[in-house]
């Protein structure tokens, strides 16, 4: 099975983000970067599927040259080769632009299965996978918890709201967006790191045909606010009201 895994390089969680002067993105020149966490689980799932069904895993990433760091990391963990779509703008672009650039680079490969993380830790659109499926002309399913390959078709478990799940049968080729935490990530081994040095990274320049449709007009950190509400009535009524609001408004209880 020929599997593609799309990974994004995002600022590390430990990094304290600061907004740039035009308030359109973070000042990431001094940031530490890491592999987007849901993408790490997508990669792991791809490697496990390859382990069970054979084939190859190709990692695809769009971004500036620093992205090669997460590409090497993915290769060290066991991916066979990589496609790097070189684009300085991709780091802060919208899902439409990133998915378009990825689709262009991936079009000649005819992958059986494309995996992406559910969403990115920085922008969090949860759209790149969905738009990419559309661009590649394959069906997709989102928020995937489990993947089973049965002959030429898939059975996948989706996470719904409120603790519900659903199993979906779908044909191959297909695209899945993977939920975090569905498997146990492997660590980078010394042999993998050594082998990664010899693996092929195909560099593709983004054509620039897909421009972002969205524009960030104001980026800001949420303000910490405190609100106090007084609930009146008898103690029993107040308690009922409190429980109701904790459940419906604060969603602190089920």
């Amino acid at each position, binding site marked *: 099975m020929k599997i593609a895994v799309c990974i994004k390089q995002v600022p590390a969680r430990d990094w304290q983000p600061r907004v740039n002067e035009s308030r359109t993105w973070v000042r990431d020149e001094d940031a530490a970067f890491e592999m987007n966490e849901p993408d790490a689980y997508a990669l792991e799932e791809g490697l496990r599927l390859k382990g069970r069904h054979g084939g190859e895993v190709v990692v695809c990433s769009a971004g500036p040259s620093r992205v090669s760091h997460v590409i090497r990391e993915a290769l060290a963990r066991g991916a066979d080769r990589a496609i790097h779509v070189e684009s300085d703008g991709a780091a802060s672009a919208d899902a439409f632009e990133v998915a378009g650039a990825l689709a262009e680079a991936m079009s000649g490969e005819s992958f059986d299965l494309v995996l992406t993380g559910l969403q990115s830790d920085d922008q969090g659109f949860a759209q790149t996978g969905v738009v990419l499926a559309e661009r590649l002309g394959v069906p997709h399913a989102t928020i995937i918890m489990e993947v089973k390959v049965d002959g030429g078709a898939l059975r996948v478990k989706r996470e719904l709201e409120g603790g519900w799940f659903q199993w979906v049968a779908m044909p191959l080729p297909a695209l899945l967006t993977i939920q975090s935490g569905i498997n146990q990530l492997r*660590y980078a081994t010394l042999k993998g790191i050594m082998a990664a040095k010899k693996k092929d990274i195909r560099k593709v320049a983004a054509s620039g045909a897909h421009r972002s449709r969205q524009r960030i007009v104001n980026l800001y950190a949420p303000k910490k606010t405190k609100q106090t509400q007084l609930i009146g009535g008898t103690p029993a009524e107040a308690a009922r009201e409190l429980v109701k609001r904790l459940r419906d408004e604060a969603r602190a209880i089920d």
Partner: protein
Amino acid sequence: MLSALVLALLVVLFGGLFVVQLSRRLLLVGRAKGTLRTDHVPARVSRFLREVVFQSEVIAGKPAVGLAHALVFWGFVAFVGYSGCQFLKGLGVVDLTGTSSFHYYALALAPFALGVLGGIIFLVIRRVVFRPEALGPLSGESVLIGVFIATLMITFLLDFRLTEGPAAAVNWWLHLIIILVFLALIPGSKHFHLVLSPATVFLKSPVLGEVRNLDFEKEEVGLETLADLEKKQVLDAFTCVECGRCQMNCPAYATGKRLNPKKMILQNEDALLIGRMDAKLVEVYDPGVLWQCTTCGACEQQCPVGVEHLPLILGARRGLVSNGEAPDALGAMYNHLERRGNIWGLTSDVRQKFVTSAGLETFDPERHEYLMWLGCAGSYEADFQKALRSLFEILRARQVTFGVLAKERCTGDLAKRTGNEYLFQELATANIADFQAAGVKKILTACPHCLKTLSEDYKPFGFDVEVQHSVVLVSKIAGDLRLPGAEAVALHDPCYLARYAGHTKEPRDLLARAGAVVKEPERSGDNPFCCGAGGGLLFEEHEEGTRISQRRFEQLQATGAGTIVTACPFCSIMLKGAQASANAITQVVDLMTFVDGRIKSAAAAAPPPGARPASLQPVP
């Protein structure tokens, strides 16, 4: 003439047997990878004198047995010239035995002979009658060699009385033939240590548990097969004297696990002699044993013949980890180290909260003498942070200046000790760059594992600054601390503080000043029984046999003290876990918390109005 010819034939026969067996083993050493290191000559010579010439390790581990062995050893050395002269005489080369100096030499040997005789009889009785478990099943060969040695001494002593006649000739021949047969038996038996152990002891690293860094340029990945063993490790396999001291002192073996350090060394020997060079090491040993080692270092420290177990166990772990074969719990921990730089995978804001609430300043070489290294436990473990707050109070009261790095990542202790060498080197080089950028000259840490890693394991990277454990510094600066009291406390020496760094005096000194009476548990001081956390076992959920922490907790409880004091975050976690499982009332506290608590209660008890207690006065 005929007798000289017969003796010459015997010498060629038995000497030949010795040489053939010897060269087979030395060839295996020679063909093995790596080099035999002879750096730090003064330290090596000093160890050689102590451990070989004066038999210090042999005697310290087991005084009666050790002394008996020392008598046999010194006797052997003393007899070399005597036996040499007898052979020269027998072969008709030169007869020195008639000279007066030989006569005095022989007379001087008499007390040695009596010592050897007494020693060997004691050792044979111990082996045959008492059969200590560590020695394994009774070996006929050992008894035979015991009888040989005794006979050699008896024939020597008889030689004073039997000067002429057939009895004298039989006595003389018996003496020489036993020497020759013994010689031929040496290389194939544990008595090979007679030949090899002086070299093995000299070649043992002066630093306990030193595991050489892998060279990634040479594509080194650790020990995978028998062919990957390094020269010293092959030498170790042939040197092992099978005394079982490593086994006796191993906390894993003591708690019913399969790991037996002695067995591993002997399994190497067997596999090497069979020539299974392509056998995977993990298959040479019993299943799972490589992951049962806490790296407490007791085996290597107690070995009287210079065997190094830690480079073998950690090297074999590297061979597995490099292939992605680490246990699941460690795999998850590696991910935490890779992504978050700490063993628990927590985000740095947790550390930042502690740094802010404890009022810690960012290190500035102009204003701070010490860099306070928090480590994973200090940054993320709430319980240990209480101990650190106590430490900070004591340091501030004595006007010690210290600051912390804005960001920290794990020293790499667990990566090193579990065989993830790549991760270790990544962490080490990044940390060293941070230290150098911050202008750090002196490091203070409350974690014995960080102490070992920063002070010893960072040296190969050219990083060599003063690293101190907080207990050592506090015992130094608290010279005027004198608190009344006689509270009984059991002290648990952390392996990485007591065995690795040798700090056994400081915690006792500090406890005495704080008004405590130290109750020593079984296995204390520089040969403590491990808490069970080291070497990645902190993350082990299911221990085979009894939990090591439970066994240690029971030993500490048996002192009768109501409080157990220790000075390591990992010992604390393990002992507190054991305390909770046992539902015991014995409390476990960090030494700093204990001392700080004593200072405060003394201050609260009787402060003269308006005056500060003497113990809190800054030292001028």
